[in-house]
């Protein structure tokens, strides 16, 4: 498939997904009611549903999904490991500890502003810890050590979460588990603003590193000989991908599979050139998460399924089909 063709298809799909998401949700509204609400008419409660719940939720889904897929593609290139995903460095673990701690101590309910803040703090703590370990040996950042440190730090944080939950009340446990599974239900315009402020500049900067990331795929030594500033590229790209992940986890919890499956699917369709892979991953992740979230809201309405369940249910078979297709000559 051509890169431009896929890009156009993904943009159209994202636009269609946004239209669908405005039209359908947990509450049944007619097309007329939705249009009236968008135009500023209709009953107050309908305007609230469309303008203050559905729209920010769609935009947040696009930002988080795009950010996670872009971060996943970056981690896969830097760690030279196709199994890498945004949470591989313990970022989800750190964020979970922050969120669960706040819930368990009764400092905040599931919708309070303190929750994303605590999750972000936990995520940044995890990143700092992993970076510190990986650079302890000397002046260069060893990605193998980084990977090991990430796995160990994630295991430690997961033990922390288990400990906090084991001494918490049942209500807290349920709230924490739902948060960990990931949801876009907490979306608000201010949340969209803050997430966009992190995500868009970080994504833009990462796109400028596409060509050096291509060189890294054939090895750090060769990238060096071809004139890339390998240490700077590694550090900058890792920090940006980590920031994208942390911003996503803070507002939406741990949504799995987007960061792993989307970059692979794009790679299977258009190849590994990061100049195409990175922007298309962002678009693909945005589309995929927005669509998954609509399904999560309507399939068992009024009960909402955690969106992470849908991303796995949809993403895994889709990925297997693509993988199978790529193996057939």
């Amino acid at each position, binding site marked *: 498939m051509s890169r431009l063709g896929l890009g156009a298809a993904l943009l159209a799909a994202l636009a269609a997904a946004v239209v669908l998401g405005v039209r359908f949700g947990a509450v049944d509204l007619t097309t007329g009611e939705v249009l009236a609400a968008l135009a500023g008419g209709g009953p107050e409660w309908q305007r609230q549903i469309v303008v203050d719940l559905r729209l920010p939720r769609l935009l947040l889904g696009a930002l988080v999904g795009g950010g996670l897929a872009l971060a996943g593609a970056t981690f896969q290139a830097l760690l030279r490991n196709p199994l890498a995903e945004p949470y591989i460095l313990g970022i989800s673990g750190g964020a979970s500890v922050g969120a669960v701690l706040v819930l368990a101590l009764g400092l905040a309910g599931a919708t309070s502003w303190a929750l994303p803040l605590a999750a972000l703090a936990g995520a940044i703590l995890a990143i700092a810890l992993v970076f510190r370990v990986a650079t302890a040996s000397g002046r260069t950042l060893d990605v193998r050590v980084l990977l090991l440190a990430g796995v160990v730090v994630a295991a430690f944080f997961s033990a922390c979460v288990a400990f906090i939950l084991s001494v918490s009340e049942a209500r807290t446990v349920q709230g924490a588990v739902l948060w960990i599974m990931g949801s876009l239900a907490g979306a608000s315009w201010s949340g969209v603003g803050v997430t966009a402020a992190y995500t868009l500049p970080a994504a833009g900067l990462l796109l400028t590193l596409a060509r050096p990331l291509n*060189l890294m795929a054939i090895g750090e030594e060769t990238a*060096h000989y071809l*004139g890339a500033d390998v240490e700077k590229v590694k550090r900058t790209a890792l920090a940006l991908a980590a920031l994208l992940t942390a911003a996503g986890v803070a507002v939406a919890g741990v949504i799995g599979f987007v960061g792993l499956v989307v970059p692979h699917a794009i790679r299977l369709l258009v190849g590994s050139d990061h100049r195409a892979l990175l922007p298309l991953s962002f678009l693909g992740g945005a589309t995929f998460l927005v669509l998954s979230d609509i399904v999560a809201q309507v399939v068992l309405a009024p009960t909402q399924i955690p969106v992470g369940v849908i991303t796995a249910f949809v993403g895994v078979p889709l990925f297997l089909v693509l993988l199978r297709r790529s193996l057939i000559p």
Partner: protein
Amino acid sequence: MRFTAQDLVVRYSGRGHAALEGVSMEVPDGSLYAVLGPNGSGKSTLLKALLGVLPVSAGAARVDGRDASAWPRRELARAVGVVPQAETIAFPLTVREMVAMGRYPWLGPVGAEGEKDRAAIARALEHCDVSDLAGRDVMTLSGGELQRVRIARALAQEPRALVLDEPTASLDIRHEMAILELLRSSADEGMTVLVVTHSLDLAARFADRMLLLADGRVTAEGPPATVMESAVLEAVYRWPLAVAPDPATGTPRVTPLRRSLPPGA
């Protein structure tokens, strides 16, 4: 381009003896220069020091009279194309994409590929006889094809010097000869070529000068005729050898002898 080492000492941290112990050598401009020696004698270390990627403990490693580590990376990459010993490619990549990477030092992170770049890529593909493979995934290439593609990537850098670490290891006769012919003709056109190899005979046939390393020290240096002495080679490789002119080419040829037989038997 000239590469020079002056009383060069390189020490790896945590190891007692130095990997290079006072090496002095000069690769003259426009020559094909071969570095030889037993495994672990410091050949690759010497290349890395001359390319400014290993810290120099004492002495100097210079490229065109300037400390190798003082060169800005991109400027050095425009002047010197490097084909390292081995690369593990993490993701699928076409031959053309691989060779186009050689344009990085000219384009930087965001520059767009122009007419000049496309011409350089096409020339490099042509020169290494891999134009037909341009659309192939590099992971599906044979060893000989991949090696030519990697050399094409270095040529696409349009460098004034090529540095290659064992470029013909594990290649068959045809591919080994094709690569050495390519390096020889590049040197004849004015390119400085610095190559590490294990093949004494071929180095003697193709190189202008040879450097023999043993335990991080220079044992012999000069034109092949002066380096290819059985006494010198036996001492370096610690194995009985015979050196005689090759009946077909007239260049010195090394024959390792069986240990049970006395030399000359």
